[in-house]
């Protein structure tokens, strides 16, 4: 399985849409086998998704992500684990140890129900209605 993490200075990049560097980790079972890093150009969503698909990525662990990018990745059969923050090594270890839902890895201000929607748990309640200027993360 190939896990991708957008990185910046050893940490998970704040926003995947704007990230420039992607760490790719080959994992067998729960063991890390190999790491490599690729550069991400500033591309439109379909091109960014295509780059991940052609790199054989199965899972992406990232920080904030726009809805269109998250939806397109999911349709392309790449599992998205969004709104994660922390050092890359700790995040990777937590993922392999099934501990990524712990609060220290949760980036503040994720869109409602996002982690649940992408199948990664999380305690955010769903909120109806949108387009309301001035609403903030509960």
């Amino acid at each position, binding site marked *: 399985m190939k896990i991708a993490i957008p990185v*910046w*200075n050893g940490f998970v*990049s*704040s*926003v995947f*849409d*704007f*990230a*420039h560097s992607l760490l790719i980790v080959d994992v067998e079972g729960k063991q890390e086998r190999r790491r490599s890093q690729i550069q991400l150009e500033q*591309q*439109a*969503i*379909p*091109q960014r*998704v*295509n780059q991940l*698909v052609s790199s054989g990525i199965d899972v992406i662990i990232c*920080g*904030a*992500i*726009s*809805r*269109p990018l*998250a*939806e*397109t990745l*999911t*349709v*392309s059969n790449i599992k998205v684990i969004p709104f994660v*923050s922390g050092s890359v090594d700790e995040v990777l270890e937590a993922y392999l140890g099934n501990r990524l839902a712990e609060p220290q890895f949760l*980036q*503040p*201000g*994720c*869109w*409602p129900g*996002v982690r649940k*929607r992408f*199948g990664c748990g999380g305690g955010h309640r769903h909120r*109806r*209605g*949108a*387009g*309301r*200027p*001035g*609403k*903030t*993360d*509960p």
Partner: protein
Amino acid sequence: MCKKAQSKERDVILDSITEGVFTVDLDWNITSFNRAAEDITGISRQKAIGQQCKDILRADLCETDCALRNTIETGKPIINKFVHIIDADGNRKAISITTALLKDETGKVIGGVETFRDMSLIEELRKELHHSYTFEDIISQNHQIQNLFSIMPNIAESNSTVLIVGESGTGKELFARAIHHISPRRDKSFVAVNCGALPDTLLESELFGYKAGAFTDAKKDKPGRFALAEGGTIFLDEIGDISAAVQVRLLRFLQERTFEPLGAVSSIKADVRIVAATNKNLEKLVKDGAFRDDLYYRINVVKLPLPPLRDRKEDIPLLVDYFISRFNRLHNKNIGGVTDEVLAIFLAYDYPGNIRELENIIEHCFVLCQDEIIETKHLPITFQTKEQSESSDIGKAVTLKEMEKIFIFQALTRNKGNRTAAARELGIHKSTLFRKIKSLGI
């Protein structure tokens, strides 16, 4: 005044400012965050304070060219820099930022202050003006549309002629522009021509141009749309409406990549990619002899079928939110959403005019709605009389729960009972679907 009182007074002042304001210490941790900043980012002050500013602002320059870092390092403010952020709802938003140093009473630098304005309206107007829409502007979680997204880069990279088919109002031009914007031709022109809107003779001169003296009023040379689109993309909308004469000329262009302006004695070579679109059944037109089969095969190289809105009803809530958000900006209103009843009516309707019709309905509601929520009384009169008298199953449903039941049943039927495929189409996890099937008694 004690420190606590000073801090409270500072917060009151900051909250009264309409621009977003936050301050950071020298470790980039947020130390204050005003109400407007909460509104723009969608992140509460409580969650923002103490966090790294890059994790809260989430701007495109945070990790490459941080404005605050530049200001703190050089002492120079940055004024009105245009950047994009991802807000807490996953929306890409344009903002303008200004930075300055934060000093204590002795003049020692203790951090930085960033103020920012929401520029979504400006960007919206710019997009409207220049028609510079991109993939980010296509709102859909529909599986069929998402599949089109996944093949779009390959289509854009190629030079092949594209045929976009779909009913009126399904977003054919939006797709054509999006393809152009991710293609190697993006720096050249995108020229759109509605072939159905021009009379036959005018269309010919409009497309290919004319030479001075070609006809009575042709006083000087006029370049056609093909010449204007040199190096770029020409979008031929309503291609099914063009006459036999224009079909021949178009065919020649597709075969030889050259065209002759009216009255010209020699051909002009052109490097133009064609993206055509129609809401008609071209195969039927070919069978009926109204459309040349050789031209049909030339333009039908890559075909993109866009589903009508009635086949992607899962997108209706998203589109409603998008249009409400857009009209809030354009009309300077503060409408928060629609009632469940209105949403049920929207979901029940079949939209012969597709997304454009939904957009018009919501614009109608915006004109009438002076409250914070759009109710049935704000809907066009036709909806108020028919409301739920639609003949479809959905039209008979009253509650959202019943609506959900019908949607799931229809998705299962479309996918021949395959629950995994139905879950994927509905955009939910298969275990969620299993649970809903059980709880709704499907």
